């Protein structure tokens, strides 16, 4: 009897410990959100989204240039990264040889490469030859950062598609191309989309690779060949400035950034729940 009581007691203690540590780890996250919302909510109004920043000292102004710039950077990066990433993912999932082994290692290395290094690469590849900072160069840097996630998700979900589907397609007389396009990729669509959205939400908040590529721009610009503002860059600059108004704007921009990333993640969850193919 005694030993059973001891066991029950141990059980309870362990349960309490788990709950305690879980709460402890979630706490910083809640504090961050709380802090950002508390400081940022005051800055947000319609003008904040529709106006450009004003010089220090003047009241009001917004971050329209940064919001548009961020979306532009990610949009162009997606144009590069999605087709390339999906194709490489398909290649890695469908073949197994020395080349694919090598590529797999490369993708892992790329994923753990510091983002500042990727920024330097983009600087060397794009900024130096064009002799100017540009949205394009920033997008190249972001695209390189997006690739590993897209490749890995594409590869893993394609590998999860049962081989029987491929066989069924062949047995109906289909060739490889239509099997890939009409059976395999649609079946893996949920996973591929998840990878794409996760990679977008990841690079949305990147600052380092943009420092010497997109560079930042206090004016409104959508020309990809000119420098462009982005949310993380703006936060970086405004937070380091000595002006209280600018600090307020930095908090507001942080809140906007967090909300965008959060909604992307929620979207991913919805896709996984609703869109994932059942096999």
């Amino acid at each position, binding site marked *: 009897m005694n030993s059973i009581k001891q066991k029950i007691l141990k059980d309870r203690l362990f349960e309490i410990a788990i709950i305690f540590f879980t709460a402890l780890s979630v706490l910083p996250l809640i504090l961050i959100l709380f802090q950002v919302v508390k400081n940022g909510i005051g800055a947000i109004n319609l003008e904040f989204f529709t106006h450009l920043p004003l010089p220090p000292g003047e009241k009001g102004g917004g971050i329209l240039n940064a919001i548009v710039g961020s979306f532009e950077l990610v949009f162009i990066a997606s144009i590069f990264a999605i087709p390339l990433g999906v194709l490489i993912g398909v290649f890695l999932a469908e073949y197994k040889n020395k080349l694919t082994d090598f590529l797999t290692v490369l993708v892992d290395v790329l994923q753990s490469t510091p983002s500042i290094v990727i920024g330097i690469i983009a600087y060397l590849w794009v900024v130096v030859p064009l002799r100017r900072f540009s949205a394009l160069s920033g997008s190249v840097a972001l695209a390189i950062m997006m690739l590993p996630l897209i490749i890995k998700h594409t590869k893993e979900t394609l590998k999860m598609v049962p081989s*029987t589907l491929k066989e*069924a397609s062949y*047995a*109906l*007389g289909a060739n490889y191309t239509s*099997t890939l396009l009409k*059976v395999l990729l649609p*079946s893996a*669509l949920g996973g591929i989309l998840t990878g794409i959205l996760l990679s977008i939400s990841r690079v949305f908040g990147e600052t380092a690779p943009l420092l010497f590529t997109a560079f930042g721009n206090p004016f409104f610009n959508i020309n990809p060949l000119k420098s462009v503002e982005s949310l993380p860059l703006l936060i970086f600059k405004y937070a380091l400035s000595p002006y209280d108004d600018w600090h307020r704007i930095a908090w507001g921009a942080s809140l906007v950034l967090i909300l965008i990333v959060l909604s992307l993640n929620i979207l991913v969850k919805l896709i996984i729940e609703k869109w994932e193919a059942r096999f």
Partner: protein
Amino acid sequence: MGSAILKIRNLYAGYKDGGWVLKGINLDIYKNKITAIMGPSGCGKSTFIRCINRMHEVVDGARIRGEIYLDDRSIFGMHPIIVRRKIGMVFQRPNPFPTMSIYDNVIAGYILNGIKLKREEKDHIVEDALKKVFLWDEVKDKLHVKGTFLSGGQQQRLCIARSLAMGPEVLLLDEPTSALDPKATRVIEDLLEELKKDFTIIIVTHNASQAARISDYTAFFYLGELVEYEETERIFTVPKHPKTQEYLSGKFG
């Protein structure tokens, strides 16, 4: 007896490594009959039917030798796509395409081969194929629901309908009921009995009772060789070969 629709002559097949998995198979498959291929695991029965619709060659490093004639024409002289349209295949686990509706699953062969059909033609093919597998009444009100929402037995019948929609002459079934419960199995078995009026059926099974129940002819494979091929009634009452006798009395396999 009836006439032979498929003639297999001196067939050898193997994979990248190792020797032949099938060793010199000679066999005639009779039209509008159910032929069961039985044998213990690893006897080459699955490889055998995969040779018949040239699915064996899809495997990396697969080797094949010998001849298979469909209506006296060598299948190796035909394009694999044509062969597979004339010889449909149903697999062990029901595998409807998860992204397609029931409707699209039935005409998947046409979709995948890029064959354009008029709306009425499609409707007709879908209804006809689903009726042949006794699925029409069960699904006619939800044709645009995904095929994977059906039960296992219904999914397997959907897969049979998908093969039938291509208008094949021969239907290959690779242990089609091994993933199904007894009731769904019975439905499939009764269905095959109906289908043999219009098609020639070859079914691989490791279940001797099933082979006995549904087939007209039974081939017993052992270690890659065709040990005995006979009318089912004979092979299950007076098998000629001692290995068949041992297998049927449960001594191995």
